[in-house]
């Protein structure tokens, strides 16, 4: 199903390259010396690691669009006829949504890890597991939103607004030390901050972490648990009596 979006995949890869090879490199030369110190000596590595998390997030939310497509094309009825419970269905969708975007982002993630330099494979393994849970949670969030909003247009706009603010109000692009206090307060509880922190920890960029790896993993586990639960509740509720139509 994901390969339906091959042009989206190409575009996202181009966006990633432009962000890293142009914006990342140029801004790295524009920032104050203080920023380089706070980011562990290289803002470019900090930024590249954050962009991977942003890409993972934006690829995973696509699962919500599939839900609308399926409702439009009568695929939901087919899925309901399969010998799986509704709970299994939504859990499978969330895992599938997380896994497919994870697989897509994996090569780009690998490029960034090679750029930064792999120091501890065990840490990377922990970070990748946490990122998978994060993707799983984002898929659950997207399914929850798709199930609670009937209009495709409204879902599109809500996702656009959410995307605009959730990415910018996180530490994916900049360290919290340079954020105004109100933004920094919001960034501390942002799941993208947890994901970016754990990925940077895995890549050996400890100096820049806002939260400890334990707190990041805990935050991600809470995020994915809440949205998987909500996704199941909303999906089951919406499926009852053909509410998706």
């Amino acid at each position, binding site marked *: 199903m994901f390969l339906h979006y*091959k*042009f989206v995949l*190409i*575009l996202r890869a*181009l*966006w990633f390259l*432009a*962000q890293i090879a*142009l*914006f990342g*490199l*140029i*801004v790295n*030369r*524009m*920032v*104050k*010396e203080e*920023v380089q110190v706070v980011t562990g000596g290289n803002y470019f590595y900090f930024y590249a690691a954050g962009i991977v998390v942003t890409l993972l997030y934006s690829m995973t939310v696509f699962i919500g669009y599939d839900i609308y497509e399926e409702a439009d094309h009568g695929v939901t009825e087919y899925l309901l006829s399969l010998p799986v419970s509704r709970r299994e269905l939504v859990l499978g969708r969330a895992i599938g949504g997380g896994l497919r975007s994870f697989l897509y982002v994996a090569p780009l993630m690998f490029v960034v890890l090679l750029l930064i330099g792999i120091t501890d494979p065990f840490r990377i393994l922990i970070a990748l597991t946490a990122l998978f849970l994060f993707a799983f949670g984002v898929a659950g969030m997207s399914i929850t939103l798709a199930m609670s909003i009937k209009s495709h*247009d*409204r879902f*599109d*706009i809500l996702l*656009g*607004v959410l995307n*605009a*603010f959730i990415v*910018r*109000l996180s530490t994916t*692009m*900049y360290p919290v030390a*340079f*954020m*105004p206090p109100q*933004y920094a307060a919001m960034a501390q509880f942002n799941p993208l901050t947890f994901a970016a922190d754990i990925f940077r920890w895995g890549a050996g960029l400890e100096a820049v972490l806002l939260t400890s790896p334990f707190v990041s993993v805990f935050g991600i586990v809470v995020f994915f648990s809440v949205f998987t639960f909500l996704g199941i509740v909303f999906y089951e509720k919406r499926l009852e009596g053909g509410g998706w139509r």
Partner: protein
Amino acid sequence: MKLGGIAHLLEYDLRNFFRYKWWIAGMISMNLADLIVMAVVYTNMISPTVAGKYLSYFLFFSPGITITALFAAAFMIGREINREFRRSLSHYLLSLPFSRRELAFGRVLSGGVRGMVYMAPLLATTTFVTWFFTEKLPSPLEMLLVVFALFLVSIGTSGLSITIALSTKSFEKFVTARGVIYYVLFFCSSVFYPLDFIRQLGRDGTLPQPLVFIAEINPLSSGADITRSFLLGYPSFSPLMLLNVALFAAIFVLTATFAYLKIVQE
């Protein structure tokens, strides 16, 4: 060419534009997030040696956001024209009492006007923000020149978008081409970073010379710098900036008009 026919086409395309209220709302939130979050944080991070001439990175970036919004809104017309040709809606347009030349030029002009309509509140906000921090307000003539330059960028973008839309019937290919153009023109311009700094990176060997050249001739760079020169006083205005956007507009308005005429004849 009759002006009445073109006015009808403008009305048709403006009405269509406001049908995309969700898209417009999404764009506005993206622009706001860029201005009130991203620009504010980067202002704390960017070295004063880079942004000092503009007082702050926030003031430097505000006109850049205006240009990106103008570009995205003016590019929308291509998406619609691509759809019209895929769904043969263009046959209906051909049955209307306009000459083909009016139809072709009218569509290019509409795209440009839509870009201006969307950009106007952002330009007003940028003007207010720069006035608030610098107490500098452009004279009516300077403002007119800014609006004229931005209109040239807008109509040129509309022409570029229509040219791409007519070169393929596949919507996916159009979207991909649009993405490539967006990324090259946005990131290789003075929207996010000053042109002086890009040139310096080119001299240092950090940035390849072809990318520096793209940034220099990029109409988005000229549009953003003309706006900055009158709102912030730096960089100083050069007629070459205006010539650059005028050339961009002339090339793509003509290309799009001829491409449209050619495709309706087929």
